[in-house]
């Protein structure tokens, strides 16, 4: 059963250059104990999807214009700020990109975990602090008793991200949203954080929405993937299907961009691949496919009509869907 179901979510931002549709009919679904990877370039709407689920879209200028967000069966899109407060940190936890600046410098890390427990479970300070120590242990911080009394500046980036995870998971939420949790960290620490997320997800059954541009991490961790471009989902499905058989030219581009380790120096080196061009401005989107200016297979239809997400016919469980005219035409030819 889906813990979190986002349906046709539309988010608009009023800007000086006119209305920007930052999320355009986004639909996602995640089951208990599942990891959903959302990938795409900066500015494609990944983080905005997360903020919408949290009810933290900055308003003004942002607004959820249409669509629904359901936690279990409860509608939370458009819920009051009091209702959302009881959900945030309690039923949905979130961790962010910047562990260095995401913790309040004047409170101990134990206090910052305990606050959440006091807030949502009405625990007294002693019980809340005990939970904080327990959580620090769970996220693999040595000497948790001692570290709970430390201030953020006394911890390394990796440690701080572990603390952030401890905060997010302190009230045992159904869903954890991890917004590029490892972008600011060293490679070795990145792997540790991903391992930790995977372990916590297995032990606690938390559903995780993993927002990243690390295709490798998605391949390794996620069950499902959603590829976003310019506020839309352009391809989605089970990770194995999508990565082994990508249909959208953008997905292919992303996969091709992942650099490979070359160990034999005698072999000719491949140049690093890139997708030419940049993400278009959301206020200047035309009628057609937003990716068409950067696409190597673009044809006339792409410029006139926006492709919709449709099931890729030759896959097993019908979950693999793609929004591209070219793939469809090809499928028609088959």
């Amino acid at each position, binding site marked *: 059963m889906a813990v979190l179901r986002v349906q046709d979510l539309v988010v608009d931002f009023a800007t000086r250059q006119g209305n920007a549709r930052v999320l355009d009919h986004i639909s996602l679904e995640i089951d208990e104990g599942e990891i959903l990877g959302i990938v795409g370039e900066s500015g494609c709407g990944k983080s905005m999807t997360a903020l919408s689920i949290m009810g933290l879209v900055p308003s003004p200028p942002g607004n959820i214009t249409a669509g629904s967000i359901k936690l279990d069966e409860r509608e939370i899109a458009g819920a009051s700020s009091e209702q959302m407060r009881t959900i945030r940190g309690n039923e949905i936890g979130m961790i962010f990109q910047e562990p260095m600046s995401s913790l309040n410098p004047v409170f101990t890390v134990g206090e910052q975990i305990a606050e959440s427990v006091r807030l949502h479970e009405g625990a007294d300070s002693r019980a809340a602090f005990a939970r904080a120590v327990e959580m620090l242990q769970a996220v693999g911080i040595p000497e948790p008793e001692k570290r709970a009394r430390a201030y953020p500046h006394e911890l390394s980036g990796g440690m701080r991200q572990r603390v952030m995870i401890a*905060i997010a998971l302190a009230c045992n939420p159904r869903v954890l949203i991890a917004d590029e949790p490892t972008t600011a960290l060293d490679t070795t620490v990145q792997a540790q954080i991903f391992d930790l997320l995977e372990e916590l997800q297995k032990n606690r059954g938390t559903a995780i929405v993993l927002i990243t541009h690390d295709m490798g991490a998605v391949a390794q961790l996620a069950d499902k993937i959603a590829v976003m471009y310019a506020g839309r989902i352009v391809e989605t499905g089970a990770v194995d299907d999508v990565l082994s058989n990508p249909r959208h030219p953008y997905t292919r581009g992303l996969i091709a961009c992942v650099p490979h380790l070359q160990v034999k120096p005698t072999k000719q080196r491949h140049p690093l691949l890139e997708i030419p061009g940049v993400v278009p401005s959301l206020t200047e989107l035309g009628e057609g496919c937003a990716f068409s200016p950067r696409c190597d297979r673009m044809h006339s239809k792409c410029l006139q009509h926006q492709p919709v997400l449709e099931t890729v016919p030759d896959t097993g469980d019908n979950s693999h869907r793609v929004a591209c005219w070219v793939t469809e035409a090809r499928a028609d030819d088959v």
Partner: protein
Amino acid sequence: MLLLTVLRRLLYSAILVVAVLVLNFLLIHLAPGDPADVIAGEMGGATQEILDSIRKTYGLDQPLYVQLWVYLKNAATGDLGQSYFYNVPVLDLIISRTGATLLLVFTALGFAIVTGTFLGVLASYKPTGLISNLVTVLSVVGYAAPIFWTGIMLIILFASVLPIFPISNMYDVTKDVGPIGHVMDVLHHLVLPAFTLGIVYLAQYSRLTRASMLEILGSDYIRTARAKGVSERQIYARHALRNAILPIITIAGLQFGSIVSGAVLVETVFNWPGLGTLAFDSILARDYPTILGILFFSAVIVIMANLITDLLYRFADPRIGAQK
């Protein structure tokens, strides 16, 4: 660790105080005028012999470095000399006036910090709203208006239009009201001077608080607090204000000297019997030992205030204490 820091800071402070003493002593002797004239009385009736005998008695015939040395030696034992004008020990004179000044300065500072911070937080809640604009106007006016002008305007207002606050002195000598009545009477007299002195700093602190709150409210850790489900009120009062108060502590500490000098003006305008009026009177009377004593004393107060600020800052910001 903390004790060591305090001791080191105290040593630096002592050196600084000696430097202040020497500099003031030399400055005073650069000023024109002969203290012997003052002591003899400015009626002009003193003969040369009387003046010579006065110079000999007070050691004014000695070379300057000898006078300085004697002064420093005496100061080290707590003897700041005899007031030429009041003819009592300077130290006694200063001590009798310090209480009034400290009362005025701390009331003004407390009023400025508490009200300024509160208004700043209020303004940051809606940065383009009415309150925010009012705070901006208030702070521009408060900052631009000279202290003595504000004081005089308030005197005019409360002397004629709205006589609810006394406009002069620290208490009413004509009334016998008992100890509690006396305290109330002093507080009643304190309102206008403290407001006048505080308004300038209130203006600055409200602006500063507004700016630092706005910056902090956009920071990542506030987003984290929101993601935890902390209420907006708690975010303002706990998460943001704790951080926004840090620059206020710094500025208030640094400005303590300017508040003390502002007190000189305010005391003069409102005839408040503190160090300020004493300084003012002593300068008019060329009472050098008293002037020197007051300068020395206010230097000590300012240095102590800075020391306390630093310690307070360590307490308020955990990141400072860590740099051992």
